[in-house]
């Protein structure tokens, strides 16, 4: 028996730590485990992946998990992200978990892959209320541990403690994460994993579902074309300008690192919602507090 779990998150969400916590929790159960992350040159907010292999025998496989039994998607906007491609290769009757607050049933995915079992939970909302941060390493590990069903809550707790301690988190934060992990663990059900060796190469996932808009040559060769990347999906909160309160002081315009603000004719700023990364400097610095925040809710 070997279970392969693949985590897809955005830098800063804790995908790597989630894979470690899951691995350590299974190890605490006496199983053999292996975990590893992979990320490109990009930063916080950019797609990252991590893997945990769990087995009652030796783990002789190495590297990227191309054929996961369980895929944990920590940010639903990654579902159609052409770099992350989280739907690739999921085994027949495998599990797709999506951190989502919309309660969506992910109909499009279920139509393309009726064999996949989809589970969802609002991990970010839970983390914000219990820990006060949108970091969901322990929450995601808890969800994965519950889904695969081989790990007890005791082993999970021990793993959360030891892994977060190693990262240097203070006791208060660790305890909050344990509470979060416990809550998530208790809220989900195990899924019977009877995946078989047959796995689907990406071709069977409809191209439109993963690629979104196409990129043409003209776009590739034009200067300043990075706005086609649409980093707006990195946001957790969206800044919203109240034009009645805005005094056109240009403070937000001066301080936005991303050049995501342009000025209207009356010098009041307009936010490029497709690309604003949600750093919230504009919100923090606006002198008359004319900018408010709204939590992002994204449908896939």
């Amino acid at each position, binding site marked *: 028996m070997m279970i392969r779990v693949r985590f897809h998150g955005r830098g800063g969400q804790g995908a790597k730590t989630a894979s470690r916590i899951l691995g350590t929790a299974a190890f605490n159960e006496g199983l053999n485990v292996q975990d590893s992350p992979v990320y490109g040159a990009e930063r916080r907010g950019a797609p990252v992946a991590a893997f945990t292999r769990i087995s009652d025998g030796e783990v002789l496989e190495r590297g990227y998990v191309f054929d996961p039994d369980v895929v944990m998607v920590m940010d639903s906007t990654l579902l159609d992200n052409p770099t992350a491609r989280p739907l690739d290769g999921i085994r027949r009757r495998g599990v797709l978990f999506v951190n989502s607050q919309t309660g969506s049933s992910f109909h499009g995915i279920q139509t393309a892959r009726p064999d996949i079992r989809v589970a969802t939970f609002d991990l970010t909302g839970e983390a914000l209320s219990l820990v006060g941060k949108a970091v969901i390493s322990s929450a995601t590990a808890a969800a994965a541990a519950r889904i695969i069903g081989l790990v007890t809550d005791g082993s999970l707790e021990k793993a959360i403690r030891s892994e977060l301690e190693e990262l240097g988190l203070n006791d208060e934060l660790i305890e909050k994460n344990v509470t979060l992990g416990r809550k998530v663990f208790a809220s989900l059900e195990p899924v019977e994993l009877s995946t078989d060796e047959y796995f689907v190469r990406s071709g069977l996932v409809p191209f439109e579902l993963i690629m979104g808009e196409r990129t043409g040559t003209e776009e590739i060769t034009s200067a300043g074309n990075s706005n086609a990347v649409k980093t707006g999906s990195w946001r957790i909160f969206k800044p919203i300008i109240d034009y009645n309160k805005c005094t056109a002081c240009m403070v937000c315009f001066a301080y936005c*690192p991303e050049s995501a603000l342009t000025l209207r004719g009356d010098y009041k700023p307009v936010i490029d919602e497709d690309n604003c990364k949600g750093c919230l400097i504009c919100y*923090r610095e606006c002198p008359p507090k004319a900018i408010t925040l709204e939590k992002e809710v994204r449908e896939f």
Partner: protein
Amino acid sequence: MTVEQQTRFRTLKDIPTPDYMSPGGSLCAGCGGLLAVRLFHKVLGPNLVWVNAAGCLTVMVNYPYVPLKSNWLYTAFASAPAGAQGVRDAFDILIQKGKIPAEEDVKVVVLTGDGGAYDIGLQSTSGAMYRNLDFYYLCYDNQAYGNTGFQVSSATPIGSATATTPPTPSEPGGNMFKRKDLFEIWRAHKPPYIATLSSSFAVDFLRKVEKGSKMKGPKLFISLAGCPTGWGYDPRETIREEKLAVDTGIWPLKEAVNGEVKHTYLPRALKPVEEYLSTQARYEHLFRPTKRTEVIRMIQNDVNNYWKMVSKDENVEIRLVGE
């Protein structure tokens, strides 16, 4: 002429409205280094060649997506100033031979992090200054090797934890080496213009770049670059963090015109360094589990000693902390 008459930047509202960069690059949300590049670009206008040494900011480009609307040349860590020399010479020769019209000339700007400026590219910077190369040099100083996971550089301040200087039982204070004084290293080469910058003092920032642009020869700038990822603070705090660095006296804003140093912002009373240190995770070990008063005092003393010298040299009164 007063300073006000020499500049087109009197208030924040004078900030040039065109942007020469697009959003959507790959850097962390709230990156102070990117903001410095954006402001620098605004002053110099669109006709630039950035010669970028390996580092965090090279990752703003993720092929085929490029935020810059200007030109960009990516060099190895050590050799950006050498690259700048090549670009400068090529343009000079082409214009001289009449192959391109003089109005197509560009400004050549080296862009490098502190790893490139203080460590790996120090000798080629020295060489370019020696040859009196007519170029700009912008170091975004986030005080460590941010690109590879925040390892110590010779710009890392005392007390900072980095990936390679974590607090340990034998070295509980984190990094125990003092930052190199790059400003003074540069000044020893006698270039026409050197300045320190912080985006949080945007008008000061814009004025200095403008001032440098009126001179021929090497014009070098070090900008503090608030780094939410490496320093460990919420991305929204980048401006606040940089401002605190200035108000505590940790990051002096100054310039040297033909070697003569003048501070462009003189805080009347310094804020305690503790106010700044306690907001960043890289200094957390100085406060928890036990307070490392001796390290904090050492940092404060260094700051006090610096401003004592400034008080004397520039004949101003500055209230220090704890004296």
